[in-house]
């Protein structure tokens, strides 16, 4: 590969910028200046599809209506564990509106055992949703109930009912957060997966101070406002699927494999996408059901889940139990970290607690043993910051506790043990913003009136790998009338990648972002990255910039004759191609385009490697050398009489490489903070241990933070340049979600002087911790 040397900006804007030389592929765009010197990138450009969203015009999957479209409903198991002896669907098939009936569970086969309430048993496609529901209700299922177990602790017991046997148990987790494969299964416990460096056990024996705590986190559900949905249109010449998905290209591959279709005959489309948070990463059972029904009925089939189905069978963040021990020397340096975890993703795997304890702080000795515990509950899957959210809940509280034991300021302790210069800066900025100096000793801030309210301030950090999808492509087209199109299968799930793509291409072509038409979310276009793992912007923006740069070279060559200079002496700016030496000599870009020999020129580019290489590669995915993170501060008021915690303010200082749209980033960070707060205080999937049913499968008893709970949120985003790609941009979604809950927990400790190690921190839990109410005893969830 032909390369050239180029000098890139490096460092944090406003703190210290220098330059670094990199070897870059010759067909990539030249180094991009820091945002302050750019016209469009780094500016708060209004969301491209904002107008379509505020008028209700944008089409979500749930809004798709095709001629002759049928409606599907799924019959679900009312039992937590049962063997299906027989399914009698004759009455459903005889229903006048019914066009197809599908058995999802086949008696006598492995699929004939259902393992959680809400597991799919059969499905119906009919002329209306109501007819489909009526018909599904007429399917008679003969269940042989089996013993079941729904809680993490009960499932670990030696005599617990077995959710799976060795033959039926999943070994890996293809549908969600990757779980290590090949681990032993004992009872319901798979694992442990172990990691180790040094000798943590020995170092703990000799440590001057050891903090030792047990932490629990609840099961959280994704609660995407748009339910999981699909419209499958199976035809002789191919299949078109409209799906609310985080990964059009990935779903296309899954469909091709599952239905033995050539890729060229499968098209996946999504326009408006009403939130995923990890739960819409793959095709899913419901997707396969809708496609199979469409194939059987020879008509388009729409399947949109109802809210209770969302809550029970559309994914969740696994619940966890952890024991975390940290040994430290008197000066605060860490001697050892040891973590043992048991988590449950119900009938799925992937309940690990991530890598924060392993990777965030300097510590020579580390050991972890992580276990997955099967329960008769709906399958977990990736959810915003998987692993690191429960992992951070424990680690960042333990570090806070350690600081207290050492009589050190929690920020000073982190300055000692955190090697990241970026987070050091984030701590400094955040401390100033929140007014860290106002902080009292734990429990000492009683307020002037001596009333029941105690206030506190806490801090916590986050860590997230900078993910990159190397198989991520984008095409830029300039038409003869001068209009510009960017196309890719990448999807906009609400994070605003549409706008980001317009900004990146507009910057190259010297246009305004509104002049760029972005058409994405369709596998007819070059294959883009998934929208999970905080990797979308990092993966697609370098491809877009490089494609636009290639197209621009053609335009410059075209203009060079008229402007009587070499293409390298021309620049695209303000809608014109102009001479660098004589800016007044210029031609409008659309006049240059008008001279094209063909109706358009276009270029496709895909994501190259980071210029300094990757830390790790896993198929199409890779991990950049640097990590992403952030530091969050929370200020809380705790009512010691009612136990109610109110978060009054959060300061979030984050980094994502080069920020491309600070307005959209602010939105996303606020969202991460609110989801983290909601996890810390409110949300809890509750299963009835007697039946295995979820008792709050809705949005009124499953409590998600609303407008009145939202605190003031200050967002600060660093510009952190590393000279690693054509845009140097990385992700923000997950790092913004990880630190919030432990920051709130540390603030609660600072307020009341008592530490709450279980989430959510409900009023009852606060009162129990204060000794003002009987302890709730052993929690049944997760």
């Amino acid at each position, binding site marked *: 590969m032909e390369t050239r040397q180029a000098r890139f900006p490096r460092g944090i804007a406003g703190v210290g910028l220098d330059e670094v030389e990199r070897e870059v592929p010759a067909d990539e765009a030249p180094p991009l200046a820091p945002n302050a010197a750019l016209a469009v990138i780094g500016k708060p450009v209004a969301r491209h599809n904002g107008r379509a969203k*505020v008028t209700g015009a944008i089409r979500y999957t749930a809004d798709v209506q095709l001629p002759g479209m049928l409606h599907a409903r799924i019959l679900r198991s009312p039992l937590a564990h049962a063997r299906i002896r027989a399914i009698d669907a004759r009455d459903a098939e005889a229903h006048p509106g019914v066009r197809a009936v599908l058995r999802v569970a086949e008696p006598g086969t492995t699929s004939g055992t259902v393992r959680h309430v809400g597991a799919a048993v059969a499905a119906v496609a009919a002329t209306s949703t109501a007819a489909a529901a009526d018909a599904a209700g007429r399917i008679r299922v003969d269940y042989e109930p089996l013993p079941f177990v729904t809680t993490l602790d009960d499932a670990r017991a030696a005599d617990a009912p077995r959710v799976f046997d060795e033959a039926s148990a999943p070994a890996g987790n293809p549908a969600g957060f990757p779980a290590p494969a090949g681990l032993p299964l004992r009872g319901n416990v798979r694992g442990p997966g172990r990691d180790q460096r040094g000798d943590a056990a020995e170092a703990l024996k000799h440590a001057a101070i050891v903090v030792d705590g047990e932490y629990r986190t609840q099961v959280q559900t994704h609660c995407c406002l748009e339910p999981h949905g699909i419209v499958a249109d199976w035809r002789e010449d191919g299949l078109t699927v409209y799906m609310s998905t985080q990964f059009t290209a990935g779903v296309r591959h899954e469909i091709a494999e599952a239905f033995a279709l050539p890729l060229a005959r499968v098209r996946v489309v999504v326009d408006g996408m009403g939130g995923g948070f990890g739960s819409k990463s793959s095709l899913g059972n419901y997707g396969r059901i809708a496609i199979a029904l469409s194939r059987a009925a020879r008509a388009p089939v729409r399947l949109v889940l109802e809210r209770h189905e969302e809550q029970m069978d559309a994914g969740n963040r696994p619940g966890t139990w952890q024991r975390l021990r940290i040994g430290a020397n008197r000066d605060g340096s860490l001697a050892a970290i040891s973590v043992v975890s048991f988590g449950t993703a119900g009938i799925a795997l992937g309940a690990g607690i991530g890598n924060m304890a392993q990777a965030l702080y300097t510590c020579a000795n580390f050991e972890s043993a992580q276990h997955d515990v099967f329960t008769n509950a709906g399958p977990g899957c990736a959810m915003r910051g998987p692993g690191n959210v429960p992992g951070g809940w424990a680690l960042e509280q333990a570090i806070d506790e350690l600081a207290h034991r050492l009589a050190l300021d929690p920020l000073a302790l982190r300055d000692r043990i955190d090697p990241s210069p970026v987070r050091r800066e984030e701590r400094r900025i955040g401390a100033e913003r929140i007014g860290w100096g106002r902080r009292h000793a734990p429990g000492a801030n009683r307020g002037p009136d001596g009333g029941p309210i105690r206030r506190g301030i806490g801090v916590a950090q986050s860590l997230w790998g900078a993910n990159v999808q190397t198989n991520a492509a984008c095409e830029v087209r300039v038409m003869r009338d001068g209009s510009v199109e960017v196309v890719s299968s990448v999807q906009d799930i609400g994070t605003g990648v549409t706008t980001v793509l317009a900004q990146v291409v507009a910057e190259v072509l010297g246009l305004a972002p509104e002049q760029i038409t972005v058409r994405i979310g369709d596998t007819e276009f070059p294959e883009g990255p998934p929208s999970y793992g905080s990797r979308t912007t990092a993966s697609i923006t370098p491809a877009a910039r490089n494609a636009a740069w290639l197209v621009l070279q053609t335009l410059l060559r075209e203009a060079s004759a008229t402007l009587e200079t070499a293409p390298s002496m021309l620049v695209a700016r303000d809608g014109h191609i102009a001479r660098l030496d004589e800016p007044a000599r210029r031609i409008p870009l659309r006049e240059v385009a008008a001279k094209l020999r063909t109706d358009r020129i276009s270029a496709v580019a895909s994501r190259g490697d980071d210029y300094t290489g990757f830390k790790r590669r896993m198929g199409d995915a890779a991990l950049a050398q640097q990590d992403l993170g952030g530091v969050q501060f929370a200020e809380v008021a705790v009512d010691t009489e009612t136990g109610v915690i109110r978060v009054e303010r959060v300061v979030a200082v984050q980094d994502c490489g080069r920020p491309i749209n600070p307005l959209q980033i602010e*939105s996303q960070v606020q969202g*991460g903070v609110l989801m983290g707060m909601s996890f810390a205080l409110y949300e809890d999937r509750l299963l009835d241990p007697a039946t295995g049913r979820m008792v709050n499968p809705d949005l009124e008893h499953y409590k998600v933070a609303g407008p009145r709970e939202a605190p003031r949120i200050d967002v600060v985003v660093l510009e952190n340049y590393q000279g690693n790609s054509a845009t140097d941009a990385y992700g923000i979604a997950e790092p913004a979600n990880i630190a919030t809950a432990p920051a709130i927990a540390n603030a609660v400790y600072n307020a009341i002087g008592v530490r709450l190690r279980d989430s959510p921190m409900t009023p009852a839990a606060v009162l129990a911790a204060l000794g003002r109410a009987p302890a709730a005893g052993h929690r049944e969830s997760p």
Partner: protein
Amino acid sequence: MKTRSLTRRAFLGGTAVATAGASMRVAAATASAVAPPSFGPDPVPIRLNVNGHDVALRVEPRSTLAETLRGALGLTGTKIACNRGACGACTVWLDGVAVCSCTILAIDVGEGAVTTIEGLAPGGELHPVQAAFVQHDAVQCGFCTPGMIMSAACLLQHAADPSGDDVRSAISGHICRCGTYPHVVEATLAAAKVRP
């Protein structure tokens, strides 16, 4: 407000009003009590006034207003997310009052004037609340947005100079999983300064 017969579902509609806007919980509770006629299960003819137009259509008596708007009338800007009045995504105006259209039967709407997100600013110009939502990025995935806008715009119809707490109260029946609340409050307060 026009008088409508009170049915059980219309009464539930009143509950939905309380969800959609705590300050506007007056809709159905004041309607006079008359014994309800019985319908169904087959489709029955009804007339609706939607976004200023009278339309005649046939609906199954069990069809909610939200389903009817989205299905028969193709007005898919109104969203269904929880289908039981807990999240506010289906909020429309009924006689100028923000209500959850998923808890009102279409046959109970009677002569009430329905305004949906599509009717908020007919003619292509954005309503000031819509424009402010774009400008302040009070939109992420956008699925809760039409309902949120209907409640925010309803507040501005009734409150001359709303405070941040007024806005939070007006949208308190809405859930936004992306967490747009801070920008929604900012946008609504900004729109209040340039009301139509």
